[in-house]
């Protein structure tokens, strides 16, 4: 037992989980502000604790930006009545929100969010099967939604659960196969090694753009975001799998969706856009001092936030797929495309060697 290791791991876990939760809260705000901007509205601009109004100059600006809205939302979720409808299957009704949240938190454990500070690697666990770990955990995420649909014991949530299980399994396949060319090129499953390779040879999105596109679209489907939000399609399923949920349990599904979004943004940055590296200003090799270490973390966060904004932007730009179109895209377009992509990459690599 190595106490040093345990203490530093606990600190890293606490910080990462805290940061992700904070980002979830403000991603919701970003979602509302961006949607307002796209639809020519103002968005949240009222919520304010009493003392902020007293700050001259700065106070009204902060309020107009809606920076206190997440606090109000959080408070609202906690104070609302936690209502359990009569006909639900109680055990699953209680378990489902937790099962939805846990995988979304676990995925982040293997993603390197910086190079190093001192002698500490900025990753919670540097697994040598990092990618497989993330796929394993992501594939468990579907249980939260399926069980929520089953537990509610009513028609619309049930349809949502059924839809999500079919959708997530379908897109997991194309997602998994889209990453194989990356693994072929790098020759390693370790996410830190993949970033190291990219810092020497350039971003993998340039080497394997098809992989990136399939991965991007599949991660929209995996996180149940529009244009693939069929499990919760409001206009046809009322609210889908979380129709019967209220208060904090509903908030947990919300939390799961947004942390999944953040986790897949982080995965895309790591796999295709060089993780914490930038090809200039000497940011492409592990940090020697504290300043560079922090700069690497900031680079990672900025890249990741760009993808989060992309997620939000797409949601308000595209209509929802029809269910048969969704299945058609997953099975008849992406799976063959991913297979051809693997074959072409393998042939090119073989010809080069």
């Amino acid at each position, binding site marked *: 037992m190595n106490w040093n290791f345990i203490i530093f791991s606990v600190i890293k876990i606490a910080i990462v989980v805290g940061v992700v939760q904070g980002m979830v809260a403000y991603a919701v705000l970003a979602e509302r502000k961006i949607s307002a901007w796209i639809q020519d509205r103002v968005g949240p601009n009222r919520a304010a604790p009493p003392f902020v109004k007293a700050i001259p100059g700065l106070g009204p600006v902060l309020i107009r930006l809606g920076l206190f809205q997440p606090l109000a939302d959080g408070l609202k979720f906690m104070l609302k009545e936690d209502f359990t409808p009569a006909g639900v299957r109680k055990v699953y009704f209680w378990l489902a929100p937790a099962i939805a949240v846990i995988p979304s938190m676990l995925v982040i454990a293997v993603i390197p969010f910086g190079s190093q500070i001192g002698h500490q690697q900025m990753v919670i666990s540097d697994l040598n099967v990092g990618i497989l770990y993330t796929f394993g*955990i992501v594939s468990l995420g579907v249980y939260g939604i399926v069980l929520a649909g089953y537990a509610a014991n009513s028609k619309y949530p049930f349809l949502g659960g059924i839809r999500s299980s079919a959708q997530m399994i379908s897109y997991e396949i194309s997602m998994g196969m889209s990453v194989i060319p990356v693994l072929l090129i790098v020759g390693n499953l370790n996410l830190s090694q993949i970033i190291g390779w990219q810092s020497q040879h350039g971003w993998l999105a340039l080497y394997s753009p098809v992989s990136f596109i399939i991965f991007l679209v599949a991660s929209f489907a995996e996180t149940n975001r529009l244009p693939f939000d069929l499990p919760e399609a409001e206009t046809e399923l009322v609210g889908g799998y979380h129709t019967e949920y209220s208060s904090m349990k509903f908030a947990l599904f919300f939390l799961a969706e947004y942390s999944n979004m953040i986790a897949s943004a982080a995965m895309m940055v790591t796999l295709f856009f060089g993780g914490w590296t930038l090809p200039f200003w000497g940011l492409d090799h592990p940090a020697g001092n504290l300043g560079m270490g922090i700069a690497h973390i900031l680079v990672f966060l900025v890249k990741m936030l760009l993808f989060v904004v992309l997620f939000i932007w797409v949601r308000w730009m595209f209509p929802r797929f029809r269910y048969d179109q969704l299945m058609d895209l997953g099975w008849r377009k992406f799976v063959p495309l991913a297979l051809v992509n693997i074959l072409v990459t393998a042939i090119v690599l073989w010809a080069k060697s």
Partner: protein
Amino acid sequence: MEAINNLLGGSMVPDVLFYVFAALTLLCGVLVVANPFSRSPVTSAMFLVLTIISMAGLFVLLHAFFLAAVQIIVYAGAVIVLFLFVIMLLDLKEEQRRKIKLFGIVTGLISVGAIVTISLKALGAMPPGAEATAPQLEGGTAALGKLLFTQYVLPFEVVSVLLLVAMVGVILLSKKDLK
């Protein structure tokens, strides 16, 4: 990798974890088939997921990381989700009222007996205290791939063909008109 080695490097931890995971595997495995509190097939499927996850834990303790990850991706992530998919579409009430049949118990006992016999034989081949034979490969994917495509290429391809046959069969069966 380093993290796991750090954690497993300690004296007691792997042993304790082994007992925890083994107990969980057995307990959840029993609850899949004989749950005294619920006869719902969904509950059984969820306990099967727990069984598989605990088994993945055992694989990690054996440093077979690839196997552990694949176990979770394939079984917990896909196969049992499909089970759930089918179970949820069935009429569960009827299933829950169904009596346990003698035939089921007998065949179950026979298969349990066969597995116990095999395990006992395997244990007898290696008396306690004897040196375990060194594993042929570490958990890495490169070594596994090399073995699969050189030494074991024939069984590997046969299994692939078998899976393909099953797939074609399912497609054929699910087609409405066979003309």
